């Protein structure tokens, strides 16, 4: 079973999965860094995007058309959803003292997560859904790599580069970095913190949508109840790689993705979902202050 070819194929799977985790975690990390709220419904946004893609593909009965159309429809929609979640629910509670703000925002985002789960389960059913894009796999030597893995890898790289340029070159990106470094000073400098935070929620939701679309496109199965575990995975990625760092998210995602895939292939698929939380606890144990030092 454990031939070198098989190992390489699993490694590619792990890297691609890690890239998807990195994109998802990037959104979560941005929301947390700028708005100061850990969006527990982040994984559910990913789930929503994935299952809406599934809906589009079955609607058109033509994987490629549905898949190209999905980002066009979903990205603006998710931007609005993110903005709506922040300005409708989270902004009103941002004036409270930190203790109560944390408590209220955990409750709010959990509530959103529950509502999304129930709505999706009602309309699409609770069965695991996955799609097959129908491309021929690439053959490199003896290893065969599904074509969509390569596309995903490209998308993830593109996202990281676009994001990097966005953070360095645009005014909004610079404002976001400033708010992440020092909230008070940046408000003295005249940066509209609330508006920047709302934008960060919109962009974070877009990243979640991209994550959901490529997760689905790779043929990974998805149920309406996958959201919370995806949030935990994204959090693990942030803790492993360090908060607010692009390279950190990429490294953390790769570590988690490869570890999960190899555990699944060489130990047992039963145990691979447990890996994220074990990794999270172990890292918190080793690094006394946590890798994210406040």
């Amino acid at each position, binding site marked *: 079973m454990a031939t070198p070819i098989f190992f390489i194929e699993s490694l590619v799977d792990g890297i691609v999965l890690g890239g998807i985790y990195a994109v998802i975690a990037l959104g979560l990390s941005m929301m947390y860094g700028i708005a100061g709220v850990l969006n*527990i419904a982040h994984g559910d946004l990913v789930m929503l995007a994935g299952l809406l893609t599934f809906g589009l593909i079955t609607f058109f009965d033509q994987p490629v058309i549905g898949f190209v159309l999905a980002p066009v429809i979903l990205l603006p929609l998710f931007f609005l959803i993110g903005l709506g979640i922040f300005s409708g629910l989270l902004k009103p509670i941002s004036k409270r*003292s930190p203790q*109560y703000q*944390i408590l209220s925002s955990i*409750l709010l985002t959990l*509530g959103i997560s529950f509502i999304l789960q*129930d709505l999706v389960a009602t309309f699409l059913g609770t069965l695991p859904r996955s799609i097959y894009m129908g491309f021929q796999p690439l053959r490199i030597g003896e290893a065969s790599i599904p074509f969509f893995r390569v596309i995903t890898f490209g998308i993830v790289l593109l996202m990281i580069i676009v994001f990097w340029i966005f953070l360095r070159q645009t005014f909004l990106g610079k404002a976001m970095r400033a708010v992440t470094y020092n909230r008070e000073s940046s408000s003295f400098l005249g940066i509209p913190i609330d508006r920047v935070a709302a934008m960060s929620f919109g962009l974070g939701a877009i990243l979640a949508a991209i994550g959901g679309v490529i997760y689905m496109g790779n043929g990974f199965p998805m149920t309406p109840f996958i959201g919370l575990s995806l949030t*935990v995975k994204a959090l693990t990625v942030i803790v492993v790689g360090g908060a607010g760092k692009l390279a950190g998210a990429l490294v953390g995602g790769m570590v988690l993705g490869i570890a999960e895939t190899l555990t699944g292939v060489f130990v047992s698929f039963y145990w691979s979902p*447990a890996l994220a939380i074990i990794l999270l*606890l172990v890292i918190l144990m080793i690094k006394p202050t946590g890798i994210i030092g406040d």
Partner: protein
Amino acid sequence: MRKDLLRTTTVWIVILVLASLVGMFAAPYYISLLIFLFIYATLALSYDILGGLLGYMNLGHIIFYGLGAYLFAIIINNLFMIWGSQLILLSVFVATLSSVAAASGIAALLSYPLFRIKGFYFAVATLGLITLVNIITSSPEMSPITGGFSGISLVSDLARESNPRNSYFMAMTILALTSLIHVLIRRGTIRNIFSCIKEDEQASECTGINPFRYKQIAFIISAALASLAGTAYMWFQTYTNPRLVFALEIAFLPIIIALLGGSGTLVGPLIGSIIFTLVYQLLLVNLPSLTKLIMGSVLIAVGIGASSGIVGLVRGLSRLRRKTYEASPPY
């Protein structure tokens, strides 16, 4: 103050006597409803020790409830094989105590990694722990002990000994004990230390308090009480599986109940559990598919409503009437 204490004690004793009378004479349906009410109230109050008084939102509180149920079942099944049906009361007692002790030990171990984080990270890490425990208990490797996916049940000869009435008194005793501990914590000096840590951990460290020690103590107490609730649940239901006790739907019950009623008080979680038990039963019977949607809406409503709960609302109203405009914390 003294007189006040006397009056409160009398009221609670009367309530306890009334509850015992209900337990002796009510119809089985109401008794089982009340058992669930007691279990939910115990969970909410024990959650409140760490969540309300210390401000650490332990979303994985339900883990200890499930652990209590599982450990109780495993221990009492083994005891029954050794002691037989003669010493049934003793074996229930021993099984309860030892499963609570084991759950507290697990809590003590878990507190080392968990209390290195706070706020959001603590909440999500504890949430992830539920999934981990679920995976471990239902794994094929553990199934000789835990029964895997299909769950665990009491030996049938033993299950015959369990009836709603004795489970009722067990759950009632556990709730009374939990309330007592909650009150003792709130009345004692430890309350000041807890609220000190809740408000500012660094400042309290500077005044010579060891925050970790107190957080650990609170965590262990709340875990022990939750596992007690689990033993009562197991004795009453005689069967459970990972999807019943380690499910995310149930994980939020203690939190919703405590915050709905009013966190940091004794009456709050009790009122919350009364409302919740009735509404939840109605929902599960009439609208099972919308339960999560409605719970989500309740979560959002509680989150927006400053989470001072019903007790906070009533207090706010009475303060308005007395026209004393003192500065008060949101709880």
